[in-house]
């Protein structure tokens, strides 16, 4: 199976692990990821305002290319996923799409591409059962707390990934690689996000709340899909290791050396 792939700026820089292992694992799972040519940064956050056109163009270009190749568009970074998926949804509104399409050259885009987060790809296109079969190093006994953050799940009306209050996709993923998921209430709360830039204290409070909650619930490790979540949790002194889900997957599939964390 072939799919278009949008890595995003952070994955080329501070979060290379998220990207590298995503590609390696895709190979093992029989998915060919074709990186969008000359992709541009998604902008990090979706602007909800109806008169914000320019901020959505980069996402629309990526979507349009995937659509032209008739491939699903795969994202890994939570932020990219959130922005691109919401942009795609916004493009279903023809009035708004008309404004955007003025910048799109000859071919108009209409919001008809399908966007999958890598996790959704694992669940819906590959299947957790198949992953289970391909696991060579099951992470047996590891108690892992999934950290969704806010970007993957909300707004649920658009994201439609899972139940936003009681998601299961990461937990199922953790089971598929042989580990034990630990459910804790703050797994779908915000880490503080970009506020870390100008008000690090505010971000610290939010991040610590998440790690505390995971720790009390008995997690030994936190797994995430978002570079900013990882940054905030680690920076603010998480006692638990914070790891990208692609790293764990790579470990289980035997394409990464087993970490000692």
């Amino acid at each position: 199976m072939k799919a278009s792939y949008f890595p995003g700026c952070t994955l080329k820089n501070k979060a290379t692990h998220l990207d590298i292992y995503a590609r390696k694992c895709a190979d093992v799972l029989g998915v060919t990821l074709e990186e969008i040519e000359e992709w541009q940064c998604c902008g990090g956050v979706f602007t909800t305002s109806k008169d914000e056109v320019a901020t959505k163009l980069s996402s629309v270009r990526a979507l349009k290319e995937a659509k032209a190749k008739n491939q699903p568009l795969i994202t890994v970074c939570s932020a990219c996923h959130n922005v691109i998926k919401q942009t795609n949804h916004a493009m279903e509104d023809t009035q708004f799409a008309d404004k955007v399409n003025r910048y799109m050259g000859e071919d108009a885009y209409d919001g008809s591409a399908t966007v999958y987060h890598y996790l959704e790809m694992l669940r819906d296109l590959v299947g957790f059962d198949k992953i289970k079969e391909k696991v060579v190093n099951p992470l047996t006994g590891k108690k892992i707390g999934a950290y969704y953050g806010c970007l993957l799940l909300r707004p649920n009306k658009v994201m439609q990934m899972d139940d936003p209050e009681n998601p299961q996709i990461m937990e199922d993923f953790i089971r598929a690689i042989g580990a034990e998921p630990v459910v804790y209430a703050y797994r779908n709360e915000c880490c503080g996000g970009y506020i870390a830039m100008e008000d690090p204290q505010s971000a610290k409070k939010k991040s610590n709340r998440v790690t505390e909650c995971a720790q009390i619930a008995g997690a030994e490790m936190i797994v995430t899909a978002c570079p900013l979540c990882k940054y905030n949790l680690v920076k603010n002194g998480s006692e638990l290791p914070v790891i990208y889900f692609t790293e764990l997957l790579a470990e289980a599939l035997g394409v990464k050396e087993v970490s000692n964390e």
Partner: protein
Amino acid sequence: MQRIGVFVCWCGSNIAATVDVQAVAQALKNEPGVVFSTDYQYMCSQAGQDMIKEAVAEHNLTGIVVCSCSPRMHEATFRKTAAAAGLNPYMVEIANIREQCSWVHKDIPTGTEKAIILGKAAVAKVNLNTPLTPGESPVTKRALVIGGGIAGIQTALDIADAGFPVDIVETKPTIGGKMAQLDKTFPTLDCAACILTPKMVDVAQNDKIRIFSYSEVEEVSGFVGNFDVKIKKRARYVKEDLCTGCGACVEKCPMKKVPNEFNLGMDNRPAIYIPFAQAVPKVATIDPNACNMLKNGKCGLCARVCTAGAIDYTQKDEIIEEKYGAIVVATGFNPISMDKFDEFAYSQSKDVITSLEFERLTNAAGPTAGKLVRPSDGEHPHTIVFVQCVGSRCENCAEKGKEYCSKICCMYTAKHAMLVRDKYPDIETYVFYIDVRTPGKNFDEFYRRAVEEYGVKYVKGMVGKVSPEGKKLKVQASDLLNNKQLNIDADLVVLAAAIEPDKSARPLATMLTASMDTNDFFTEAHPKLRPVESPTAGVFLSGACQGPKDIPETVSQAGAAASKVIGLLAKDKLTGNPCIASSDENMCNGCSSCERVCPYGAITYVDKEFRMPDRTTKVRRVAQVNPAVCQGCGACTVACPSGAMDLRGFASNQIIAEVDAICK
């Protein structure tokens, strides 16, 4: 040819001021069929009516046109006048020259011209009128009550009191419904069981009432006064007539780990069980999904200990067929699922419970014998947070919550918090509310007592997040009046879940051809003036199946439904509306188009023999309208492709005659 009399009313100056009534009477005199035409100041007065009667006799009239006020006002009056004069009452037509003419037009020529045209249309219609007689149908003097909660119980008792036999169909092994699960009732705080169980016993002992427990309605056909109902009595593997309810089998059953639905899964029951001590009928039931004997033929202990010989592993579902004159729906409600509201962590912690679970937790007959403890570890709670409006008053969240106010939550939450504070003054209680709605007798006083005397902390605001951390539930909420975000360490969180109609209501409504609203509550015939009747004749509504209700309201509605049923069953025959559809069998081709559009299921098909011109006979499928069920909307007349279906009183040729008269 008809002999028509035209009577133009002045209505004092109401009509006469803008309509030249004499000109109208004069103009209509020349219409076909008209043999007499006159005007008078007040046609509806005794003198006016006498004038009509005299004219009928004198001119040998066969039809009457009254040009007067709206037929909604005096059609019935003039029909009675006609009947008194020896005419068929349906030979009267009204031309509305007041509301729809003199009152809305200003100058006399315009008003007069229009009044003449309206009169001509009425004359054209009467020319085609035929005498109509309302049909009659017998009434089966027995009522069916579907649902054995407090609504069904009260309705059944009241109907039986009037001397009519009643059957109650209840899906659970016992009657009692939700009220049997409650601890105390607001605003008087008497114990639910103490006031309910005597009524249950009354039902059991009333020889006019039969209880079909563990049963459901399978099929309904027929119509008002004459319903045919099939009831499926599910196999309970215990002979009801032999079982004494001694409970020996329940005690001995080795399969003790079945979640107890009566306690909402908070404890276990055996595979053979009696839901609670005061169950009616007090008969054991075997759960076929849990019983080893039924699943794999190994055990049989209950049969061995039963001295009455009541256990019967070979029992089968049984279909009972019965006729009823009236059906009362009392299917009640359930709290909605909390699955979609996991910001309150219902699925993550045993200590987040619904209010109904809380009732069981404080009920002396409940899983903890009435001791209020945390379900997770059995420890005494120190702080309890109540959250109101969970799933109620939601917009656009059909798959999540409900748009309406569930009505009972404010009061039971006040009750819960008050009872907690009364029994355990050391427990802090918080109630998060959006609005406190207490419109009921002594309701607001009750709520105020909870706040002022019992020290329940009411906080205007909502809980945003519940996070189970260790033994505590961290509750994050807003306090809007103090403009603060609160963080409370709670031991127990109680969610006032929205209520919704029982899931059995929707298929039942289809069987009954009774209408429902978008929330699956049954629709009443009129929201104010006929609140306990369904638009479907002979079907009545009792309790929360019609909308959220508390116990006093339910009981009064149950009584009202019973009185409507008694009014129906007291009649020997039902007189129908004669303006109903009828099919010309010679034109009907049996296509079923009419049957499909009929909202009442009044149309059925019969195979009928027809004599052909060549003296052979041929069997054809033709439509038949049940005159007792048809309400006369006329949907079928338009759906009929062959023009076989017509509506009496509003026949196609009559309406066309009116159109022609207006357009002439």
